[in-house]
């Protein structure tokens, strides 16, 4: 067995164990952290496939941003895991069907030779798939790319619009206005004469 397959089996074993922990862990925070480990090892597997841009993007986007916010929310919720496990047997047939379909799709992609798909060929060392991906995204697939971006933008605007509540009584503050304030116009210097009988002013 060569070094690459050794690394593959090592990462795959961690990936499967972590994936299993995502659904079996009692504590939702442990589940979310196991999902982080799953993403990280998946990125390692993608690097083995020479897809370094996808692997790094997976870590940057999912591990570095999405999962952080996910954990942020999960930590603040008080989730009763027993309550969530109740419908397990009812949903099992549907879940099994989805899992089976996914397995069939994976077999068709990975066993591409038998289904008439051509297997990808190894690229030379000077091949930068970041550059190739950028060229493809901004030339051949630019409309699809822009559409996806617009859909995301709409989703962001919609999420903000849904959660924004106008409360007429709110005492909101404007940090911009606050940071622009100076003593001028807010402080009035008053020259008070001291009242103490023994006090003598310095210039007397």
């Amino acid at each position, binding site marked *: 067995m060569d070094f690459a397959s050794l690394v593959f089996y090592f990462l795959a074993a961690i990936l499967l164990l972590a994936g299993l922990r995502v659904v079996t862990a009692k504590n939702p*925070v442990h589940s979310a*952290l196991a999902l982080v480990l799953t993403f990280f090892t998946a990125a390692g597997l993608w690097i083995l496939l020479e897809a370094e841009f996808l692997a790094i993007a997976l870590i*940057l986007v999912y591990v570095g*941003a999405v999962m952080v916010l996910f954990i*942020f929310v999960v930590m603040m919720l008080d989730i009763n895991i027993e309550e969530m496990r109740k419908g397990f047997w009812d949903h099992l047939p549907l879940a099994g069907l989805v899992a089976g379909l996914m397995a069939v799709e994976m077999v068709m992609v990975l066993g591409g030779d038998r289904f008439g798909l051509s297997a990808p060929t190894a690229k030379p060392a000077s091949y930068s798939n970041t550059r190739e991906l950028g060229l493809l995204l901004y030339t051949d697939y630019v409309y699809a790319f822009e559409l996806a971006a617009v859909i995301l933008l709409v989703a962001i605007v919609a999420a903000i619009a849904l959660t924004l509540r106008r409360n007429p009584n709110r005492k909101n*503050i404007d940090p*911009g206005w606050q940071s622009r304030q100076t003593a001028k116009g807010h402080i009035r210097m008053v020259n008070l004469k001291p009242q103490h009988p023994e006090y003598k002013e310095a210039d007397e």
Partner: protein
Amino acid sequence: MDYLQQLLGPAWLPIWTLAKIIVIVLPLLIAVAYLTYAERKIIGYMQIRIGPNRVGFFGYRLIGLGQPIADAVKLMTKEIVLPTGADKPLFLLAPVLAIGPALAAWAVVPFTEDWVLANIDASLLYIMAITSMGVYGVIVAGWASNSKYAFLGAMRSAAQIVSYEIAMGFALVGVLMAAQSLNMVDIVNAQKGGFWQWYWLPLFPLFLVYLISGVAEINRAPFDVAEGESEIVAGFHLDYSGMAFAVFFLAEYANMILVSALTSILFLGGWLSPLPFLPDGFFWIAAKMSFVLFLFLWFRATFPRYRYDQIMRLGWKVFIPVTLIWILVIGGFMQTPLGYLFH
């Protein structure tokens, strides 16, 4: 060396890589130790104090140069206290999650044109990905401690790091547009030609955004709300003691040195000399890193802590628009004959 290579056979590559890792990590840890000393001395003089001046070597005081060693020995011999109700495995894992990315990022940092452990094509992306992992140490520590203060610190830090990462990422997009490469060696080589060719000048807004976001990313003053001692005691590492605390400390200072190295490489020309007739070399990058580190210490001694909503405003409403506009400016200029200004 050829003889050793033959003797070790296939074991040569792992051993040689391990040796190179030690050559990077060991000086880094020593630099961390003496950065804490420099911080205490410099801030001390800025506040008209002397700073540590007692602990020396072999009976000589040597202006307190033994202080970091004494601190390290003290922290190593102290007990690690586990709080009641803490999530024990995660509590002990958190410092490891903090220091792992802080050290792993150094794998692609070039010190001179040849002194780089892994000269990979996507090194800038790698740095962004690895440094974005550092937040897990903070979050997991805050949650596993089972303490309200630690948890508040973790929440603050998570929101802050995620917000500033966006501005930082956009600043890096400007650099890679100007250099037309994601490889850090190529980025430095694209800045050849002296002081005025370094990217701090054509990308000045991005340079400022990167420097300030860098301070926010590593939770340093004036953005250290995650451990604001006047509000939430010590924030996420409140319940840590002994070596577990020291590892968080190490990670913070290693990240500080990393951000200073990245600022030097991306905006200050890395190992290039400021005047074209002087020789390039490791000396220059060390000098630039020391300058940026001095700036960080200076910030800490000068500015009061930001209020939390002001931090969020600065990140989202000031830095992100500034970087977006400057990326458009670079893109626009690159289509005109004036594009050479940005190369």
